[in-house]
């Protein structure tokens, strides 16, 4: 039943691959450092719009090379999103597994905490904590990790409950397996696809969350930079130096679009429930 991958997916995967590649080694291609400034070349337009040749995508308000900024911002955004997604997914999934295994009071309490988190828009929590506790990279990453964990917990609990009711899980129990074996060797691999689909949703959401926080001044802090921070810092210059915010905006869009195309395809391909039905 192997179908050929649609062109859109191949393009999306390629684009993502290129983006990740650029994020990893992109700075090799730029002669300038991220923070390297040229006060004589502030707000220069991209080369293709008549700007100086040495700045292909122009410069920002203090004369830093946009290419260097974008590469560094891209790397930071991807890293933060990756770390956040990973932490949230692992934490949430674990909680979901625990709730599904123990049921009863444990499940009730855990699900109440999930409800609590879900009852507050995350940006509200992030905004408050970052403002009140001060912005540090550690707190920021932890916060991004807290983002979406409740989705994973709910999802994991749901899929685990349904997976555990599957005959193959019962068969494994009947063989005399310990719960830990059942969960790690059988259920986790089978629910992983549902979780991976969720990953493709969370990942761009974290990039966007960071962008919103940057707008409120609570995102990644200088001298580090992120796509959201570049985008936010260029907003006063939209009518005169649009390239500062439009380029990172385009990157965010491309990442989100590619991720969602991949996620949709993964959902169709990997969802164990769908798969069972199709065979």
């Amino acid at each position, binding site marked *: 039943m192997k179908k050929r991958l649609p062109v859109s997916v191949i393009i999306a995967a390629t684009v993502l691959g290129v983006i990740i590649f650029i994020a990893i080694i992109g700075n090799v291609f730029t002669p300038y450092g991220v923070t390297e400034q040229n006060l004589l070349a502030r707000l220069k337009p991209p080369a293709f719009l008549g700007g100086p040749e040495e700045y292909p995508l122009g410069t920002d308000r203090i004369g830093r090379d946009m290419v260097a900024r974008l590469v560094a911002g891209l790397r930071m955004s991807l890293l933060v999103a990756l770390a956040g997604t990973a932490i949230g997914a692992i934490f949430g999934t674990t909680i979901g597994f625990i709730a599904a295994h123990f049921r009863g009071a444990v499940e009730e309490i855990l699900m109440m905490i999930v409800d609590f988190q879900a009852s507050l828009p995350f940006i509200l929590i992030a905004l408050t904590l970052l403002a009140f506790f001060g912005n540090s990279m550690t707190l920021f990453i932890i916060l991004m990790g807290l983002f979406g964990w409740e989705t994973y917990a709910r999802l994991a609990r749901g899929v685990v409950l349904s997976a555990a009711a599957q005959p193959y899980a019962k*068969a494994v129990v009947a063989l005399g397996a310990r719960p830990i074996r059942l969960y790690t060797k059988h259920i986790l691999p089978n629910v992983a696809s549902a979780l991976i689909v969720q990953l493709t949703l969370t990942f761009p959401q974290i990039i966007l969350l960071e962008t919103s926080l940057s707008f409120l001044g609570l995102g990644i802090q200088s001298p580090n930079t992120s796509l959201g921070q570049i985008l936010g810092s260029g907003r006063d210059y939209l009518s005169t130096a649009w390239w500062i915010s439009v380029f990172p905006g385009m990157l965010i869009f491309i990442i989100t679009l590619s991720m969602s195309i991949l996620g949709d395809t993964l959902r169709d391909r990997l969802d164990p429930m769908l798969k069972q039905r199709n065979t």
Partner: protein
Amino acid sequence: MTEPLLAIRNLSVGLPAGSDRPFAVEDLSLTLEKGEILCVVGETGSGKSLSAFATMGLLPTNLPKPTGEVVFEGRNLLALPPSERRKLAGSRLAMIFQEPAAVLNPVYRIGEQVGETFQLHTGLSKAEIREKVTALFREVRLPNPEEILRAYPHQLSGGQCQRVMIATALALEPAILIADEPTTALDVTTQAQILRLMLDLRENRDTGILFITHDFGVVAEIADRVAVMRHGRLVEIGPAEQVLNHPQADYTRELLAAVPKLDPHASREGLGEPVLEARGIRKIFRGQGFLGKKRVVNAVDQVDVTLRRGETLGLVGESGSGKSTLAQCVIRLIDPDDGAITIAGGNFGGLKGNALREARRRVQIVFQDPYTALDPRQSVGDAIAEGPVIHGKKKSEAMTTARNLLAAVGLEPSAADRFPHEFSGGQRQRICIARALALEPQLLIADESVSALDVSVQAQILDLLADMQKRHQFGMLFITHDLRVASRICDRIAVMRQGKIVEEGEPARLFVDPQQDYTKELLAAVPGRDWQHVARAENG
């Protein structure tokens, strides 16, 4: 009568590129007359359902357009524009489906759904429609038509849903009714009633019925003519009597031979010591009813079971009778509320934690659906070896056992490296059996283990189980809703109803001289029971 009611000529339905064969239906020609029941039989993948869909114009949109002709009332349906075709659908041609509950739209009341056909094809007023629908419900013998009109699908049983569907199909007195496995999901007694309804329809309304099924019992019960399909092609077509009793094609012969006979025999001699003793097993499910009313279901109600080495005990009953719950209690996948279980002389019911896990090697289970019973991400060898590994065997030794077992269940030892999705349903069930036997259990529970399989495969699996039992001498608790199957393999049969065992005995006695009305009812409902010329006493 010169023109048949429906003539399918050279119908071919293609499959999308990359499928295992180019055509789902290939060059199919057959006719259906007025007042005739034509049964189309075939195993999974024979193309019988797609032929029906092509006739109704219901083919999935990802399939190419069918070729050939489907002539009805002088017009080729395949060439009609969609709007014309839609006018015929539901009015002149009607169809009923396999899963009656899923075929009704869950958010609308039954009355609205049945009435929709009238709204679409007639100009009747609401009151008139209501009148008509009520009359239809009476005709299909639905109890309390008024109440059912207001009910939602989830409030009806499967049999009731199918009657509603039939009522919908009959609404505008169609010339043709296409029935796609309409009784497969139903209990045997319900099935008998629906089949009765089909026969009445043919009598009273002269409807031409295209009846699709895989069950030769059903065919024997109702068919005027039979068409046998295989791999999208017509193998044989002819009057029922001829096809069933004097089949021309080898394939038909094979299929018929595989149908288990209702052939009650006495229990075997030389059975060993008791391997399972269950006393007073009880399981109650508590649900939350409307407005806090508690719903209590006695799923298993004070049941005693004993089973000896080498013996097979059949547990038969309709859905909801508690037979699966009982089996799951015995194997401790569900904890019974009450009762004692002893397996192979050792306590099993009261064990906990590690002791329970250790004791699990004594009892294993084979489930109904071989597609979900194997972890799709685990290789077959690993799956079979897993039990021994859990119980302390070395991985390499366990793999050797697994390969040997694969050979024993009739598969290549090299299958160990492959994954479940590479196997057919029957092969998977063999793998499940191998997995269960890898632990050399004293008790094997087969929970509807052959119900989902095609009849030819079913026969093979039953033979395999019998063979394995002979070799390993395990006791087997065989759960099934199919009396034919039970009669073929069981030494003793216990009939369950509403959580209780109502009657128990050797098949020879039970089938010939049932004591309980319920047992009689069940036996009477077995479709086509006379066809195989079973010698049995008439019991009035």
